[in-house]
């Protein structure tokens, strides 16, 4: 009897503790997300209101027209289209290359496999910032591209092209690592069975492995898409004209004059740049989180 009451009390206390924790953490979370609320509220204010000496959270008038006006500063439909195209091509090519290579490393024995894979692992640790100079030089001097001659001189190479943006992204080794980890978990008997049935490696890959790898490909696609959409460094270096500009570069270059920044339009554009990613996130939350967590799993 006494014991029963003790347990009941403990459960009750635990429940209360849980509630308290939720309330406290919710408040903390709201504070944490204040920058996002500020972004949206500011994007709906007028410039005089923003510069007024007294700060008010709520916009006087909700100026949704700011969003339209922001999109008129520069050719935003072009920037969005560029970023979208680069993202889609990068994701598509990455999926093919990475799952193939991941399968090769995981399931097929061949001479030098471990050494080659070790290089891939090491390459994965090297951030793009370190190799940006030589990669840029390589792409600029790419033979026969952009008016270059056979030795890669004379033209602009892959500067201001989609290829120049996509190629460095698809060379990233993380997807190979991810796919390899996934394919390693398949039983060896699967390969044996396929072999006995006269299945070539290609057929086994296309007929058996690929249909089973939807979850890992979805994870990889979402991860790659968000990385490509969010990247700033590479478009900053590779693109120097308006026609191939991406949203991340446009957002910081289109609203700043020498003397002032149009905060309401800048915040509107920022919100619009975040929006496609947020929509993707809403629909693929599970894969998103898996992708982020996967970066923490190591061989």
């Amino acid at each position, binding site marked *: 009897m006494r014991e029963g009451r003790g347990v009941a009390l403990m459960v009750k206390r635990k429940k209360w503790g849980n509630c308290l924790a939720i309330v406290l953490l919710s408040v903390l979370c709201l504070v944490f997300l204040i920058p996002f609320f500020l972004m949206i509220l500011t994007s709906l204010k007028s410039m005089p209101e923003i510069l007024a000496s007294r700060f008010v959270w709520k916009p006087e008038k909700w100026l949704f027209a700011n969003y339209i006006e922001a999109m008129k500063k520069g050719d935003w439909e072009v920037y969005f289209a560029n970023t979208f195209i680069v993202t889609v091509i990068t994701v598509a090519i990455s999926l093919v290359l990475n799952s193939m*290579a991941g399968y090769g490393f995981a399931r097929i024995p*061949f001479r030098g496999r471990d050494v080659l894979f070790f290089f891939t692992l090491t390459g994965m640790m*090297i951030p793009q910032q370190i190799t940006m100079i030589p*990669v840029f030089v*390589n792409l600029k001097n790419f033979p026969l591209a952009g008016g270059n001659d056979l030795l890669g001189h004379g033209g602009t190479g892959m500067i201001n092209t989609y290829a120049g943006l996509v190629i460095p992204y698809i*060379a990233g080794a993380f997807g190979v690592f991810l796919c390899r980890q996934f394919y390693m978990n398949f039983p060896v008997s699967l390969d044996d069975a396929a072999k006995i049935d006269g299945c070539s*490696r290609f057929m086994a890959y296309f007929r058996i492995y690929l249909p089973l790898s939807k979850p890992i490909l979805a994870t990889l696609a979402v991860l790659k898409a968000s990385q490509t959409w*969010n990247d700033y460094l590479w478009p900053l270096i590779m693109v120097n004209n308006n026609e191939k500009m991406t949203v991340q570069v446009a957002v910081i270059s289109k609203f700043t004059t020498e003397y002032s920044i149009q905060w309401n339009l800048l915040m509107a554009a920022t919100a619009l740049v975040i929006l496609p990613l947020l929509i993707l996130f809403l629909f693929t939350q599970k894969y998103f989180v898996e992708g982020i967590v996967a970066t*923490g799993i190591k061989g």
Partner: protein
Amino acid sequence: MMAGKSKKRLGRIGNEPIGYVFIAPFYLFFLYMVLLPILNMAVNSFTNYDLYKTRDFIGLENYRNLFQDSIFLQSVWNTFIYSAMYIVPTMVLGLLFGLWMSRESKGFHILRTGFYLPYLISMVCASTIWLWIFDPSAGVVNQILRVLGWETYDWLKDPDMAMGCVVFISIWKNMGYCMLIYLSGIKAIPAYLYEAAEIDGASRVQRFWYITLPMLQPTTFFLFITSCIASFNVFEQVNVLTNGGPLNTTTTVVHQIYIRGFTQFKMGYASAMSVMLFLAVCLITLVNFRFGNQGQDTDIG
């Protein structure tokens, strides 16, 4: 661990050259965009390459200049300052929130999303939002300080404040990542360890200190290594928020590489800087390979 496994498989099945066909498409890009560039970078660092005409070998001159370049030395110092101020708070916060969020209920799932939302957006977007928040006249921080009657600052243009602001924003943005990684680490700790400890009468603090923390050691190590590499390469927030100013107090190594390489076109000189950064990252990677598997092999079964 993987070498042993694959050797066994190699012995059993043999050598199938078709494997090269599978890895070739990726490997060509990888060779051309990751491995070859490292060699190119090393070669270029001994030249005065300017992207257009000249590319003469000048020996060690770039490196000699590097150690007399006060701005570069400052950028190295700044990068260390950034790393020192960024890594520990981000990881501690990530661990704390990971522990708080590890309970399984609907509410916590939604809260979790809130805390890693900043991690999903681009560094550029995060920076533009904070650029406004820290704006000296219209920004909300100074508005609040003014209402309270306190002193206001020109946050991002004050040599004493600018780096702190950059670090603060980076922590805000990346804390959620550490939280997620810690969460998955916490989930992997078997529940029976806690049950056994509870039976033995271990307090909450003891359970954290003697079970959670040691079990999370591989996670902590991984986060420390990746955070080190990431903060050695910090660039985007610096370029957007301060452009290295005021008085070079926020310029970082990658920012210097960018400035020298892509605004002054001193590709040889910038390559020498990249080589130094590459060596630093290699050192960290070596530490990782040397100590990375410690604690992961401990069998708790």
